[in-house]
C-alpha cells in the first residue's frame, strides 16, 4: 500500500507533458488553487422541440470554495447563485430558493461545474464517473452520472479547459438535447 502511494506521488510530480493523458486529480489540483475567477460565456442549446438553437450569454463568477454565480444578460436577465446546497434563482418572475437535490435538472450540472472548479473530488466521484484526456494545456474531463435519477436526464457533461481555466462545458441530455457553453476568462 505504501509503495503504491509513493509511486502515485512520483507520477504526480512528473511534468504533465511527459504523460499521454492527464489524471483527473491533476486537473483538480490546478483548479483548486484558483481562489476567485470571472468569465464571460455564450451558451448554445440545441433542442429537439425547436427548429433553431437558442443562445444565451452572460457572465460567470467563482469564489472558493464552491460559490458560483451565473448571470445571464441576453436574452433575459437572470441570476443563478449556488451556495452550499442551496440554489437561488432571480429572474423576472421573482426569486426562488431551492435545494440542489430537489432539481436534478439544474443540480447535476451545477455539481459537475462547481466540483471541477473547486477541485472537490469527493463530491464529483460520488456523483460521476470521471475520465480525463489531454494534457495540462488542453484537458478534457468527461463526467458520466452514476445515479439513475440523473442518468435519466443527462448522458454526460464534458468540461474542457486550459491550465487553471475552463473553456467549454458541453452537456448532452438523455433525450438528445445538447447545450454547449463557451467560456472566456476575464483577465484581471
Amino acid at each position: 500500500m505504501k509503495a503504491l502511494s509513493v509511486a502515485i506521488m512520483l507520477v504526480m510530480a512528473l511534468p504533465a507533458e511527459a504523460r499521454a493523458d492527464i489524471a483527473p486529480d491533476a486537473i483538480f489540483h490546478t483548479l483548486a488553487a484558483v481562489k476567485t475567477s470571472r468569465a464571460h460565456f455564450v451558451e448554445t442549446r440545441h433542442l429537439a422541440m425547436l427548429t433553431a438553437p437558442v443562445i444565451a450569454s452572460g457572465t460567470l463568477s467563482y469564489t472558493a470554495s464552491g460559490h458560483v454565480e451565473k448571470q445571464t444578460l441576453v436574452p433575459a436577465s437572470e441570476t443563478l447563485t449556488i451556495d452550499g446546497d442551496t440554489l437561488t434563482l432571480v429572474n423576472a418572475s421573482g426569486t426562488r430558493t431551492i435545494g440542489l437535490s430537489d432539481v436534478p435538472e439544474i443540480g447535476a450540472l451545477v455539481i459537475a461545474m462547481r466540483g471541477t472548479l473547486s477541485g472537490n473530488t469527493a463530491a464529483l466521484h460520488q456523483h460521476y464517473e470521471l475520465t480525463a484526456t489531454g494534457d495540462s494545456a488542453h484537458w478534457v474531463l468527461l463526467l458520466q452520472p452514476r445515479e439513475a435519477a440523473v442518468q435519466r436526464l443527462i448522458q454526460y457533461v464534458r468540461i474542457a479547459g486550459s491550465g487553471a481555466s475552463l473553456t467549454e462545458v458541453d452537456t448532452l441530455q438523455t433525450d438528445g438535447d445538447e447545450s454547449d457553453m463557451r467560456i472566456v476568462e476575464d483577465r484581471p
Partner: protein
Amino acid sequence: MAKGAVLAIWIVSLAVAGLVIARAQFTTDMSAFLPRAPTQVQRVLVNQIRDGAASRLLLVGIDGVPVEVSAALIRGMAARVASDRQFAMVQDGEISGLAADGKYLFAHRYLLSPAITPTHYSKDNLHKALLDDLGQLSSATGGIVKQTLPADPTGETLALAGRLADEGTMTRHDGVWTDAKGTMSLLAAQTVAPGSDLDRQEQALGALEQAFEAVRTALPGAQNAHFAITGPGVLGVHARAAMKRQTKQLSGIASGVVAALLLAAFRRPSILVLAFLPVASGVVAGIAAVALGFGSVHGITVGFGVTLIGEAVDYAIYYFTYAPGGAAGLLRLWPILRMGMALSVAGFAAMLFSGFTGFAQLGLFTMAGLVAAYLVARFVLPVLTPRGGASRLPNLPARLLPPPKLAWGLCGAVALASCLEVVSHEGPRWQDDITSLSPASAADLSVDRSLRAAAGQDDQSRYFAFVTGRDLQAVLQETETLVPVLDSLTGEAIRSYDAPTLILPSEQRQHERQAALPDSATLAADLQAASAGLPFQPGLFEPFLRDVQAARTAPVITPDTLLGTAMRLKFDAMVAHDTDGWTAMTSLAGLRDPQSVEAALAEQGAALVDLKTASNGLLLDYRREAVTLAACGSLAMTALLVAVLRKPARVAAVLLPLALAVLATTALSLAGEHRLSIFTIFGLLLTVAVGSNYCLFFERRVAGEPLALSSLALANLCTVAGFGILSFSAIPVLRGIGGTVAIGAFLSLVSGAMLIPPRRAGA
C-alpha cells in the same frame, strides 16, 4: 325510622347508583373542558383544536448529530411509517413525496388556473406565451420548462405549483427538511385519528418513537441523536399521562395524610373507615347523577369531584366529635350541617350553567355528592356507630382567641394590606393567555415552540379571512368573491394569501373556466398564427390542443379528486362543516394593516379572524363566565343565608369573615403568581363553600360555651392538607385550585373564629 330500614334504603340506593354507573360511558376526551363555544368562529376554532387537520399534525425534529446523520434518520423513519395505516401523510421534505400533488395540478390545470379567462388563449396572448417559453428554454430552468411545454405552453402548472409551493421556502439537506440553521432535520406526519382521540394519538406517537429507535440502532453514528416530537395529540397524550399520574399520586398522599390525621384524633381504625363512608357514598351518587344527567362521565369529573366533595369528610368529623356529647349536641349539629350542605349546593349550582361541559358535570357531581354525603352522615352513621368517636376531642379554650378589639384590628389590617396588594397590581390582573389553561407541561410547550419555529410555522396561520355558508359550494363561491379583494391587498396590507379555492375551485368557477376554453379548431388556428416566425417544431403542441379539448367537457373536480394528495389535508384544514353549516378560512400571511383588511373583507361579507385574539377571547369569555357564575353562586348563598338567619346582623356576621378570606386569598395569589386565573375563581368558590360551614358553627356558638374549635380545626387541617398537596402539582388547574382552597379555607377558619361574636345566652 327503624335502623334496619335506614340501612336498607342506603344499600339499595347504592346498588341502584352502582347499576347506573356500570352502564355509564366514561370518556377521557379533554374537550369536555373546552366550552360549548358561543360564536361560530369560536366553534370552528374549538372544532379545529379538537378534530381539525391541525390537530392531527405531528412534528418530529432530530438533532444532536451531524445533519447528514439526522437527515438519514428522518428518511429512515419516514420509510418505516409511510405504509402505516395510522398516518394519512408522512412528509420528510422529499419532493417526490409530492408527486401526487404535482399530478393533480397538471391533470386539472385548466379547471384550477385563475388565469383561464375567455381571452387567455387569444392569438396575441398565445404569441406572448410562446415568446416567453423561448426565453425560458434558454434559462437555467429550461430543463424543467421543457418537460411540460408541449402540453402546457402557457405554464399553468408551474404557476399553480409556484402559488402553492410554500414547502419550497423550507431549507433542506439532502432532500430532507431542516430548520433554518441546518442543524435539525424535520418530519411532518398527519394522523388519521383526530387530535382529541388521545388513545389513538398515543399509538401514533408510539409508532414514531419505535421507528426512531429502530433506525437509530441500525444507523452508525446515530447513537447520540436527540428525538423531539410535538403536536396537539402529543401534548394531549403527555398532559393526560401527567394528570393521571399526579392526580393519583397527590390524592393518594392527601388521602394518606387525612387518614393519619383522623387516626391520630380518634385512635380507632374503624372510625377511619366510617369517616370515609359519607364521601364514598357521595362519590357514587355523584357519578350516577352525572351519568344520568349528561349521558357520559368524564374521567376528570370523577377525579376532581372527589376533591370537591372533600368537605363531606368534615361531616363525619363533626358527627364523631359531637356524638359523644349525646342527643343534645347532635340536635344542634344537624341544622348547622344541613345549612352548610345547602349553602355549598347553592354555590355549586352555579357551575351547572358553565359553558364547559366538564365544569357543568362537576357542578352536578358536587351537588348530588354533598346531598348524599349529608344524608349518610345524618342517618347512616348514627345507626352504625351510635356513640361516635369514643373519646371527645379536647375542647380548645376560647381564650386562645385574641380579645375582640385586637381581633378586629388584626383583621382590619389584613383587609387593608390585601386591598393595597390588589391595588398595587392595578386591580386583579388576569392570566389571559390561553396557554395558561393548557394542562401541557412547560417543557412540552417549549419543545412545541422550538419545533414549530424550526418548521417555520410560528407565525403562519394566525390571521384568516372567514366565510360561512350553507354548503361546500356556497363557501367556495364566497371565498372566490374575496380573491380579487385579496389580490388588491397583496403587497400592501398583506404579503400573501392562501385560499382553499386555489386547491379546489367552486363548481361554478370550474364551469366558467371550461366555457372560457376555445374549441379545438379555433385554438389550433390561433396557435398556428401565434407561432408564425417562432422556431417551434410543427406539431409540438398537439398534447396542448388535446388536453384543452378534453378539459372543456371534463367532469368537475371534487374533494374526492384530492384524495391521496398532501393538498387534501390542507384543504380539510381550511374548509370545515358542522351542524350549523360550512366555513372556509383563507389564511393571510404578513398582515400589516388589520383595520383596512378587516374593512375590505367586511364589504364582501367576510370576517377577519385573528386566531390568537380569538383563542384568547375564548379564554376571556370563560373567565367572564366563571366570574359571573361565582357571583351568582355567592348571591344564591347569601339569599339562602338571609332566608334562614333572617337578621341582617347575623347574615353579615357569617359573610364578613368569608369576604375577608376571599380578599386575602386573592391578594396572596396575586403576590405569589402575579396573575389570577380562571382556576383561582373556582378555588374561591370552593373556599366559600367550605368556609361557610365553619362560620355557621361559630354563628351558633353561645357565649360562655367552650369553643367547638377542635372539630373545626381537625376538619380544616384535613382540607388544608388535601388541597395543599394538590398545590404542588405542575398542572395549572390542580395547582390553581389546590393552592387557593388551602389558603382560603385556613383564612376562613381563623377569621370566622375571631370575627363572629357568640350569641348571647338564651337568645
